[in-house]
């Protein structure tokens, strides 16, 4: 079960909890995307751990993989739009990870069941 989340509310919650909600959002969003693309190895815990260990460098790899997973989920449903993995990668290199969260959440909301 993948639930829809309002990205604006999630951003506000991330700010007022000093980023702690952002961690939760990262983990559940990643797990949701893994469920949508039917890839059981794409889990939030794993990607959070790897981001911690690599001082956040892994989140750049994560952003690219998120794009790939979302387009895979769209292909499986026959509603393939675009492969945004490179956009996510560039955004996250420039420190705009939160924009990646929002864009990915909007895609997940469209696919959520």
């Amino acid at each position: 079960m993948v639930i829809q989340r309002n990205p604006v509310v999630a951003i506000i919650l991330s700010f007022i909890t000093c980023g702690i909600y952002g961690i939760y959002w990262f983990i559940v969003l990643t797990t949701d995307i893994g469920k949508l693309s039917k890839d059981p190895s794409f889990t939030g815990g794993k990607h959070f751990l790897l981001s911690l260990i690599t001082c956040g460098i892994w989140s750049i790899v994560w952003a690219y993989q998120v794009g790939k997973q979302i387009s895979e989920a769209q292909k499986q449903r026959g509603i393939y739009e675009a492969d945004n993995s490179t956009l996510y990668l560039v955004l996250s290199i420039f420190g705009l990870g939160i924009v990646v969260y929002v864009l990915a959440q909007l895609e997940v909301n469209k696919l959520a069941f």
Partner: protein
Amino acid sequence: MHFKCTFDPKKHPILSWGVSLGVGGLLYLKVWLPMTNIGIPCVFNELTGFYCPGCGITRAVLSLLRLDVIQAFRYNPLVFILLPLYAMYFITKKKKMPTLSNGIMALMLIMTLAFGVLRNIPMFDFLAPTIIR
């Protein structure tokens, strides 16, 4: 004698990725770093002055390449504990044992967070990247 190369990287994606990552890592550690001294900085450490759970991994790998295991362990003891746990997580995930794999992941996350906090407390500063020789 005619030698035909039959290796097709597209057929072995994991092998070719692994080999290119390994060669790239070795070039970075053994050629790029000694020549330029420009490493990838830890943003967290640069901004706050605190050590993150991953600080010292580059130096640990460099020590391992010199076969100095004890020094590598002192730079970052956590990776030496996480690697076998991660292997166990990978296997339990593959064998579809969700309770066990989720438990191992939770344990790894708790250990990493605790390690990140403790190595910045003076009482536990032996966990910080330490040069012993």
